[in-house]
Every structure is written in structure tokens, then in C-alpha cells.
């Protein structure tokens, strides 16, 4: 993976405030085609906020977000639509439409993109549900699903019309180790089979070790570390070490 390759998404000097609190203070990051980038950071440290910028759900105070060379930071809702069609997002708690069944949720992106052939829709929905091990739950309503199931259905919805980029917001948070592992494998498989670019926000290091090509650490609103998994494990930087080895700041054992 040479550095000369043009990044698919390039974020430059992103600044975001919520109220008076500065969440991102000049955050920059490059994301390359076909790679899985894991963004680590403390809870409430602005990782999810960062992710929301990549799909235009939030507008930065200042800074650029270049997607395929085009700055999407200040596009309006309608201008963003073509970009959003290339990006799928898995929300932290799934964000399934609770008035629609599992089947209709997964079929939603296809139907919204004008797919009228219901037979094709059914076939694709069943494929997507099978991919996330959720076959046979078509008719259930989202309220009747567990958190892990909801997340997997949401993942099926995000990948049904295969995007170029998938943004994962804490894909394994709150899941048992077995389901977590199946999600990790799925992320890996999507990347290998569809050469999807994945950006994963997490504080789950097991997951990070399983899926990451590159790792970045967000600390105090800035990029504190950026490198490969090997770099992450080799670095002696104290903040990275504390995070990776799980020490709290006042942590004398």
C-alpha cells in the first residue's frame, strides 16, 4: 500500500464544536480505496461525530472533506445524494425504521433507488440477510429484535446495494464475543469480496486487531497516531500504550 496512491477520502483540518465544547480541533486523516481503517479513541471523544461528517450528516465549522477529490463539506442535502449513494453507514444502534419489518428495512435502499422488480428485491434481501446470519427473520418488526440482531439487519440494509465505502459506528459495541467475531469476519469478507473501503470507529481492540489495515487514534480532538497494526503494537508513545494496554490516566496498579 504505497502512500503515493490518491486517497479515496481525505479529511483536512476538520473543526467541530458542539455548544462551546470543541470536539474536533483540526483533525486530518486519509482513507485509501479498499482498505479498512480503524479509528480508535475514548468514548465521547468525537469518533462518531467524525464519522457523521463523512456522509454529510454534520457540517464542520471549518475544514475540508474530499471524497474522490470533491469537497463535500458544504454541499446541501440534495447535492449530497449522489455521494451518499456510494457510502453505506451502520449506525451504532442500527437505526432501523421501526415502522417497517426486517424485510422492508433491508429492501428499502433498493426500492428507493427505483427497483420495481419485486422478485429481484426478494432475492437480494434474502442474500443480504443470509450474509449476516439473519435468514428467517424477515417478518419480524425491529422492536422484537435484540441489539445484536438489529445491528446485523442494519448491516444488511447498508450493504444491499453494495456501496464503495462502509462506515461502521461501533459495530461490535454491546455484542457478545461470538456475534462480535461474526461481525468482524463479515467486515473482513466484505472488504475482500467487494473490495469495499471500510472506516470503523471503535474502542474494541480485539475487533481492531482482526480487521484493521491501518489504525488511527483520535485524542483530544486531534489525530494522535496513524499507522499500520504493527506500528500500533510497536509504538512506545504513552497515550497509545495507555489505550492499547488499557491503563487509565491515574493508573498505578
Amino acid at each position, binding site marked *: 500500500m504505497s502512500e503515493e496512491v490518491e486517497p479515496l477520502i481525505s479529511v483536512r483540518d476538520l473543526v467541530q464544536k458542539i455548544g462551546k465544547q470543541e470536539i474536533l480541533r483540526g483533525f486530518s486523516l486519509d482513507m485509501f480505496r479498499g482498505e479498512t481503517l480503524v479509528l480508535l479513541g475514548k468514548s465521547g471523544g468525537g469518533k462518531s461525530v467524525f464519522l457523521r461528517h463523512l456522509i454529510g*450528516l454534520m457540517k464542520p465549522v471549518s475544514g475540508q472533506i474530499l471524497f474522490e477529490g470533491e469537497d463535500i463539506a458544504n454541499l446541501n442535502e440534495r447535492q449530497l*445524494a449522489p455521494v*451518499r449513494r456510494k*457510502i453505506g453507514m451502520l449506525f451504532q444502534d442500527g*437505526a432501523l*425504521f421501526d415502522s417497517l419489518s426486517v424485510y422492508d428495512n433491508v429492501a428499502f435502499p433498493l426500492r428507493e433507488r427505483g427497483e420495481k422488480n419485486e422478485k429481484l428485491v426478494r432475492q437480494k434481501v434474502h442474500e443480504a440477510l443470509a450474509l449476516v446470519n439473519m435468514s428467517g427473520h424477515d417478518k419480524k418488526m425491529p422492536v422484537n429484535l435484540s441489539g445484536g440482531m438489529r445491528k446485523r439487519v442494519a448491516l444488511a440494509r447498508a450493504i444491499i446495494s453494495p456501496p464503495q465505502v462502509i462506515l461502521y459506528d461501533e459495530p461490535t459495541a454491546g455484542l457478545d464475543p461470538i456475534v462480535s467475531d461474526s461481525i468482524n469476519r463479515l467486515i473482513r469478507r466484505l472488504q475482500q469480496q467487494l473490495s469495499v473501503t471500510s472506516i470503523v470507529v471503535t474502542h474494541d481492540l480485539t475487533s481492531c486487531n482482526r480487521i484493521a489495515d491501518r489504525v488511527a487514534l483520535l485524542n483530544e480532538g486531534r489525530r494522535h497516531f496513524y499507522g499500520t497494526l504493527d506500528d500500533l503494537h510497536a509504538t512506545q508513545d504513552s497515550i497509545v500504550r495507555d489505550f492499547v494496554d488499557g491503563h487509565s490516566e491515574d493508573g498505578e496498579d
Partner: protein
Amino acid sequence: MGLLDLVKSGLFGFFTYLGQVALLAGETFRSIFAARIRFRLTLLQIAEIGYGSQLIVVVTGAFTGAVFTAQAYFQFASLNMETAVGPVVTLSMFRELGPVLTGVMVAGRVGAAMSAEIGTMKVTQQIDALRALAVHPVDYLVVPRALAMLISMPLLVVECVGCGVLASYLVAVYVLNIEGVYFVNNMQKFTEASDIAMSLIKGFVFANIIVFISCREGLNAKEGAVGVGRATTETVVICSLSILIANFFLTMFLNILFPAGQR
């Protein structure tokens, strides 16, 4: 100083709110004219708004007509003008009571439900999910509701008035023993097409008020269940007050177009 600031911030808040509602309405009508219409969702909303509001509209109309008839009769009987009850009730129902009562009832039933539903979608990130899937929330949520409301409301108003007049007739003839022929004859003599037009126009205007305030409240809901509750309450309060206030100005304006009592 303190009072002036209060007035300033109040006015600022009012115009901000008005601007937000107007922008939402503008975006919605742009979408409608660009034919970004989901017919299935619109039909579902018509069923929800129009069909679902039958009970409250019929009961409201009928009992208002009935009680108004009785009260008018008690007053007019002492002047031997019992047969004036028909036109008085009919005109008031068409021009004022029908549209206003339907508006307030629909705001309570449909407006509250709309803002609660959209507000819940907002606070549970479902609106963000829509946006992330490249679906504009206005196209998907507001356009079907607005169309359904604009179609249903005038019909509901006329239905409310119809029930009121029918109830009025029944009470007048069978309870208060007014001659049915006089009742109908006088009613027809004093009621014109313009009275019906007035109630349709008011119904249409109130539909706009209800749908855009409800959707604005829903789309701006914040902070979980409490926020949705607040949005719902505000919807009912703001819609009802707006309807009552707008009604006065509509009456004054429409009276220029369709002068009352000129024949």
C-alpha cells in the same frame, strides 16, 4: 431594559419559528412540483388522516350543531323567530365553527401523532438513516403527509359542517318542534356557494398550518423521550392558537371577497 430584551428575544424567536415553518413548506412544495411524490405513502396518510378522523369530526360537528341549535332556539323563541335558527346555525357552521373545530380536533389527533412519529424517528437516528441512504426526509416524510392533509382537510371540514347541519335539523324538527319546511327553506335562502367556498378555503389554510407546524416540531425534536413529548405538546398548542388567530384574519379577508349578509 429587561422588558425590552424580553420583547426582542420573543420577536426574534417568533420570526425564527415562522421562517423555519415557511422554509419547510417551501421545500415541500418544491418537492411536490418536482413530482417527488410517493403515492403509496400518500394514500396511507390519507387513510390515517382522512378516514381515521371520521369519529372525532362527525361527533364534533353533530354535537356542536345540536347544542348551537338548542341555544339559538332558546334565544330566538322569545322573539318568535324560531325559523331563523336554520340559517344562523348553517352559516356559522360553514363560515366559522366547522373549519375551526375541525382544525383544532385534527391538530390534536393528527398533528400530535405526526410530530410524535417524526420526532421519535429524529431522536432514534432514523431520520439520519434516511439521509444516509440518500433519501431526503422532506420527500419521504413531509410530502406524503402534506398532500394527504391538503386533500383530506377541506373534505373533513365539509363533513363536519354537514353533520352539524343535519344534527341541527333533527334537533330543531324533532325536539324543538320547528316546522321542517321553514327550517330548510330559510336555510337555503340565506346560504350561498360562497359560504361553502369559505369553509373549503379555511380548511385548506388550516391544513397547511397543522401539517407544517407538526412536521417542523417533529424534525426539530431533541433529547429523547422528553423532547418528543415537548414537541407533541407544542404542536397541539401552537397549531390550535395559530388556527384561532389565523381564522380571525381569514374571516376579515374573505369577507371582502365574499361579503356576508349582502343580497
